[in-house]
C-alpha cells in the first residue's frame, strides 16, 4: 500500500493542472468537483497508507534520483512513516473539508477565478504533501518553498487590491528569509555528512560536533520561524488574512504554518542533541505565544484576532518542541488544525453572511441568525481555550505540563498566555454572536445561515474539535490511553532514549490542571460579561491599549531598522555609486581620453619652428637618456621577468 503513496501528491497535482489549464472551459461545478474530489482521493489513499503503516511500519519510496553528482545523492523519495502519515491525514482531511467549504464560499467568483482559486489550492495541497512526504531535507525544502509560493498566490488572490498584494509579497519575502536559514542548514549537512536523507542524517548524527548540530538546528529553526510565523518573522501572518477566508483556514491556520513544527519534530534527534537550540526554540515559542496573544486582545478584525491567535498557538507548539514534548507539539498541531480551521471557517461563514464585513464591532447577536455557525464557533472557542474535555485542553495541557517539568517559569508564562487566549477568544465570540446586532439594516436583512456546503465542514470540524483530543488522553486519566504517543513513538524513539522526562507527582499535576481550568473559566465568564453589552462608541483605548492595537509597533520598527535603511542603501547604490563612481570611472576614462585629445592636439601648433625645436630637444633628450638610464622605463622593462 505504501507503494501507492505517490498517488497522494499526484491527485492534487492533477487537479491543479486540470483546473489551471481548463479554467476557461470548465464549469464551476465541475471545477469544484475536480478540486475537492482530487483531495478526497488523496485523503482516501492517506487513510489506507495510515493503516498500512500501523501494520507494516515505516518505509522509504524512491521515485527517481533528483540530483546525483559525485559525493552527493539526492533522491526524489518519500518517507512514509507515522509522522508523515499523521500529517497526511490532517492535510488531506482538513484540506478536503475546506475545499468543500470553498465551493460555496467562493461561488460568487467568476468561473476562471474560481478555477484559479482551486488550482492554487490544489497546488498548495500538493506542495504541502511534498513537504511532509519528502524523505530528505531537499524534497522537504521543495515543498517548503512551494507552500510559500501558494500562500503568496492565495493571499494575493484578489490581485486588484494592492494592499493584498503587499501582504502577499511580505509573506513570501519573510518566508524566504527563513528559507535561507533552512538552505544554509541543508548546505551544512551536505558539507558535513554528504547527505540530506533523514535516515542517513539521523544515523550519522553522532559524527557531528556540538557546534555543527547547534548551528544546523538553529538555522533550521530560522526556517521554521519564517514558515511558522515566530518572532521575529511573524508579521506576515496577520497580514496574510488578506486572502480568502478558507485559505486562511487551510494555510494560515491548519497546515502550512505548522510546517515548522513538522520539520523540527522530524529532526527531533538533532534538536535533542542541541540543548542550546532547544532552549532557544522554547523561549522563542513562549515569547511568541504571549506576545501574539497580547496583540490579539485588542484586535477588532475577526480574522486578525484569529491570526494572532494562530501565531500564539504556534508559539505553544514551539514551546512544546523546545521542552522536548515532541508528541505534545504534534498533538497540538492536530487539535489546533481542527479548532482553528473551524474558527476560520466559522469566521468565513460570518463574513459571508455579513457581506465581507470583518469588523467585530459592527457585528453582534448573530446567534439567532446563524445557529450552526454559532454553536460550532462556540465549541471551537472552548477547545482553543483549553476547557476539558475539548481537544485543545489535552494538547495544551501536555505541552504546559512538559514545560512545567522543564522549567516552572515556562509554565507560568504559558498559562498567562492561555488565559489571554481564553479572554480574546471569548471577547471575539461575545462581540460576534452575543448581544445585539450593530451593523446596518441592510446587512441585518440579509443575514442568514450559510449554505450546506459550508455548514457540513463546520459540523465535521466541530465534532473533531470536541473529540479530537481523546487520542491523547494523558496517563493521569487513564493508563496507556495516549494512543498518539504510542503511534508516534518510533519517530521520537531516539530522542526519548537520550533525554529524561521528569514526571510530576500525580497530585501536583491534578492541582495544576484544576487550577488552570478554573482560572480559564473565570476569564471566560469575565470576557462574556464584559463584552455582552458592548456598544460601538466605546471610549478610545489608552496607554498599553494603543500599543496593543498597533501591534507593538513591530511593523513600524521593521520599517525603520531594516526596510528603510535597505531602501536608502539601494537608492544610494543606484543613483550615486553606480552612476557616478563605477559608471563614472568608466566614462571618466573616456572623458580623460577626450580631454587628452584636446590638449595633445595643441602640440600640433602648425608652426614649423616649434616642430623643429621639439625635434632638436628630443634628440638632446635621447642622447642624455642614452647615457643615463631612465629608471622608470628600465624598471618597467624588468617588471615581467
Amino acid at each position, binding site marked *: 500500500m505504501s507503494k501507492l503513496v505517490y498517488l497522494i501528491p499526484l491527485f492534487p497535482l492533477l487537479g491543479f493542472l486540470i483546473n489551471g489549464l481548463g479554467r476557461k472551459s470548465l464549469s464551476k461545478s465541475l471545477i469544484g468537483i475536480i478540486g475537492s474530489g482530487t483531495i478526497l482521493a488523496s485523503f482516501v489513499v492517506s487513510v489506507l497508507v495510515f493503516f498500512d503503516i500501523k501494520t507494516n511500519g515505516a518505509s522509504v519510496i524512491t521515485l527517481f534520483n533528483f540530483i546525483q553528482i559525485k559525493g552527493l545523492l539526492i533522491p526524489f523519495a518519500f518517507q512514509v512513516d507515522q509522522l508523515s502519515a499523521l500529517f497526511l491525514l490532517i492535510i488531506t482531511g482538513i484540506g478536503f473539508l475546506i475545499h468543500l467549504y470553498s465551493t460555496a464560499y467562493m461561488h460568487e467568483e467568476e468561473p476562471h477565478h474560481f478555477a484559479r482559486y482551486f488550482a492554487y489550492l490544489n497546488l498548495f495541497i500538493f506542495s504541502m504533501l511534498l513537504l511532509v512526504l519528502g524523505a530528505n531535507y531537499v524534497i522537504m525544502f521543495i515543498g517548503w518553498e512551494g507552500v510559500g509560493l501558494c500562500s503568496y498566490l492565495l493571499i494575493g488572490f484578489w490581485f486588484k487590491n494592492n494592499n493584498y498584494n503587499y501582504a502577499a509579497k511580505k509573506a513570501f519575502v519573510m518566508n524566504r528569509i527563513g528559507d535561507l536559514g533552512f538552505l544554509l542548514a541543508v548546505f551544512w549537512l551536505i558539507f558535513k555528512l554528504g547527505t540530506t536523507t533523514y535516515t542517513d542524517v539521523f544515523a550519522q548524527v553522532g559524527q557531528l560536533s556540538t557546534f555543527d548540530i547547534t548551528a544546523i538546528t538553529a538555522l533550521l529553526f530560522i526556517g521554521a520561524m519564517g514558515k511558522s510565523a515566530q518572532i521575529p518573522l511573524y508579521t506576515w501572518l496577520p497580514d496574510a488574512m488578506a486572502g480568502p477566508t478558507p485559505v486562511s483556514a487551510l494555510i494560515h491556520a491548519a497546515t502550512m504554518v505548522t510546517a515548522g513544527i513538522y520539520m523540527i519534530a522530524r529532526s527531533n534527534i538533532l534538536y535533542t542533541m542541541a540543548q542550546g537550540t532547544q532552549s532557544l526554540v522554547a523561549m522563542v515559542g513562549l515569547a511568541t505565544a504571549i506576545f501574539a496573544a497580547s496583540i490579539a486582545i485588542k484586535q477588532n478584525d475577526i480574522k486578525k484576532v484569529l491570526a494572532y491567535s494562530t501565531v500564539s498557538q504556534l508559539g505553544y507548539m514551539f514551546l512544546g518542541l523546545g521542552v522536548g514534548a515532541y508528541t505534545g507539539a504534534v498533538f497540538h498541531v492536530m487539535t489546533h488544525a481542527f479548532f482553528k480551521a473551524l474558527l476560520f471557517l466559522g469566521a468565513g461563514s460570518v463574513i459571508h453572511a455579513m457581506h465581507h464585513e470583518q469588523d467585530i464591532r459592527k457585528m453582534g447577536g448573530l446567534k439567532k441568525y446563524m445557529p450552526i455557525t454559532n454553536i460550532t464557533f462556540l465549541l471551537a472557542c472552548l477547545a482553543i481555550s483549553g476547557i476539558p474535555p475539548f481537544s485543545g485542553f489535552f494538547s495544551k495541557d501536555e505541552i504546559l505540563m512538559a514545560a512545567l517539568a522543564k522549567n516552572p517559569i515556562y509554565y507560568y508564562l504559558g498559562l498567562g498566555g492561555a488565559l489571554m487566549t481564553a479572554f480574546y477568544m471569548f471577547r471575539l465570540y461575545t462581540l460576534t454572536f452575543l448581544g445585539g446586532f450593530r451593523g446596518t439594516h441592510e446587512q441585518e436583512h440579509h443575514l442568514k445561515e450559510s449554505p450546506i456546503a459550508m455548514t457540513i465542514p463546520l459540523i465535521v470540524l466541530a465534532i473533531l474539535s470536541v473529540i479530537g483530543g481523546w487520542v491523547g488522553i494523558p496517563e493521569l486519566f487513564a493508563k496507556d490511553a495516549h494512543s498518539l504517543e504510542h503511534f508516534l513513538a518510533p519517530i521520537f524513539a531516539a530522542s526519548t532514549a537520550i533525554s529524561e522526562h521528569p514526571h510530576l507527582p500525580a497530585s501536583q499535576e491534578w492541582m495544576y490542571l484544576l487550577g488552570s481550568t478554573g482560572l480559564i473559566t473565570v476569564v471566560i465568564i469575565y470576557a462574556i460579561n464584559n463584552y455582552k453589552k458592548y456598544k460601538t462608541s466605546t471610549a478610545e483605548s489608552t496607554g498599553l491599549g494603543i500599543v496593543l492595537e498597533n501591534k507593538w509597533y513591530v511593523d513600524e520598527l521593521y520599517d525603520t531598522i531594516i526596510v528603510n535603511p535597505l531602501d536608502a542603501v539601494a537608492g544610494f547604490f543606484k543613483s550615486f555609486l553606480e552612476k557616478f563612481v563605477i559608471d563614472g570611472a568608466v566614462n571618466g576614462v573616456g572623458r580623460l581620453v577626450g580631454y587628452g585629445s584636446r590638449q595633445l592636439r595643441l602640440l600640433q601648433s602648425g608652426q614649423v*619652428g*616649434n616642430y623643429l*625645436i621639439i625635434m*632638436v*630637444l628630443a*634628440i*638632446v633628450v635621447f*642622447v*642624455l637618456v642614452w647615457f643615463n638610464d631612465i629608471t622608470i622605463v628600465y624598471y618597467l622593462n624588468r617588471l615581467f621577468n
Partner: protein
Amino acid sequence: MSTTEILFFFLSALALFSASMVLISKNPVHSVLWLVVTFFAISGHYILLNAQFLAIVNIIVYAGAIMVLFLFVIMLMNLNQQNEPQKNFWMKLTGVISGGCFMMVLVSLVRQTLDMQTKVAMTTSGDIGLIKNLGRVLFSDYVVPFEITSVLFLSAMIGAIVMGKKD
C-alpha cells in the same frame, strides 16, 4: 704655429663668423652674401685638406649656382627691402638654447671618445682628393649611385616645372 694651423684657425673663424652673420643679418640679401663667404671659407678648408676637386665643386655648385639661385629668388620676391618680422623673443631664445644644447651634448660625446683624441686629419698631403683619383672610383665602384642620381634630377626637374609653371 705652422702655416696650416694659422690658415685653419683663420678659415674656421671666418666660417663661424660669416655663418653667424647669416643668422644675424636682417636683410636676406646680406644673409645670402654671408653664406657665400661661409662657403668660400669651407672651400678653403677643403683646399687645406687637399680635397681640390670638392673645393672647386663647392665654389661652383654652391657659391656659384645655388646661392645665385637663392639670390634670384630673393630678388624676384623683392625681399631685399623687406624687414623680416622678428620671432617672439622667447621663441628665439628657446631656439638658441635648443641648438646650443644640441651642440653641447654632441661635443661632450666627442670629448669622451678616446680614439678621436689622438687622430689627426691629413692636411696638405694625401692625393685622394684629386680629380683623377675620385673620378676613377666614381665611375667604377660608384657608378650605380651616380646613375641613380639621374632619377633624382629628373624628379627635381619635373618638380621645378610642375611647381614653377604658372597655371
